[in-house]
């Protein structure tokens, strides 16, 4: 029996709601100690990535998010049987536990900010030309012109980066105020000024949205893509020690797994 794994939750209890996953299969919890692996049974390999299967996967993790802390698992993670799954849970237990503690009662939001890079550059060039009129009209030698052009490009790019840093810094001040953790990337492309994800406590979600609206109204000439709330896809950090638990730690964990726990999932099918 192959098991399709959707996520790890901070509960070893049976799922009360009826949730259906890929191929319409029932989703249930396989407990390990005080956490659980959310799975459904799968008979055949999934034929590629389709919009339907991706949305089905995501819908399961979203439903879980309503009642549990969830670590969403990468799409198309299929484990070969219950014993192997329990072995995986044992290997990763400490990591899963630590991450669940970090993301409990928190949700992820994504923010992308697109600025008109062409216009920004145009402004910078105009300002530069205005301040260097005398230099620009002087009749330099070809060598000097070449060096001056290179210098101009350098100055323009520096100013471009400087402005990007400034905007990101200001926006991030508003967002970070209500975020527990964040990841921001600058200028992935010239137009994509900021690509950021924030981990926000559920009771600060409203404040975070308001902060976004505030930033958006301050710069209406920029474009914004706001998404969420999501399970904490971008904030799961697994240590390199996974799978390398000492023998004594493994024995301790195995002692905690009772036959009753293992059968909880099976009963719920």
């Amino acid at each position, binding site marked *: 029996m192959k098991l399709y794994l959707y996520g790890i939750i901070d509960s070893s209890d049976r799922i009360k709601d009826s949730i259906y996953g890929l191929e319409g299969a029932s989703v249930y919890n396989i407990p390990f100690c005080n956490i659980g692996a959310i799975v459904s049974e799968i008979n055949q390999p999934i034929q590629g990535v389709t919009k339907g299967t991706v949305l089905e996967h995501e819908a399961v993790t979203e439903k879980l998010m309503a009642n549990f802390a969830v670590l969403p698992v*990468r799409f*198309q993670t299929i*484990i070969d049987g219950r014993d192997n799954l329990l072995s995986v849970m044992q290997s990763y237990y400490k990591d899963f536990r630590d991450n669940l503690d970090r993301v409990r009662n928190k949700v992820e939001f994504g923010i992308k900010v697109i600025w008109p890079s062409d216009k920004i550059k145009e402004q910078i060039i105009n300002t530069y030309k205005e301040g260097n009129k005398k230099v620009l009209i002087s009749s330099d030698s070809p060598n000097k012109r070449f060096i001056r052009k290179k210098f101009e490009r350098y100055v323009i790019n520096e100013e471009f980066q400087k402005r990007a840093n400034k905007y990101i810094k200001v926006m991030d001040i508003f967002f970070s105020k209500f975020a527990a953790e964040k990841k921001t990337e600058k200028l992935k492309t010239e137009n994509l000024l900021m690509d950021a994800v924030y981990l926000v406590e559920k009771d600060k979600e409203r404040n975070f949205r308001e902060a976004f609206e505030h930033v958006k109204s301050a710069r209406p000439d920029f474009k914004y*893509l706001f998404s969420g709330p999501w399970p904490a896809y971008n904030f799961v950090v697994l240590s390199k020690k996974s799978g390398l638990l000492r023998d004594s730690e493994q024995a301790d964990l195995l002692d905690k797994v009772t036959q009753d726990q293992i059968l909880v999932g099976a009963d719920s099918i």
Partner: protein
Amino acid sequence: MDNAVTRSKDITLLEILDRVLDKGVVISGDAVISVADVDLIYLGLKVLLSSVETMEQLRGSPFVGPMQEAK
């Protein structure tokens, strides 16, 4: 599947893809069955997803849902 789950949020399918296919817990080991095609398919998608600017080009494509900017 309850479509309302996804429709109720200000999201795009690209945002979902970026997370479901590229983020979250990655489990490695012999117990995990890998499906060979997925990486290749994802590589193709990754090219599309790598730039927000391509979203506009993707609009209307059968694979991509409506792009929503935050309201």
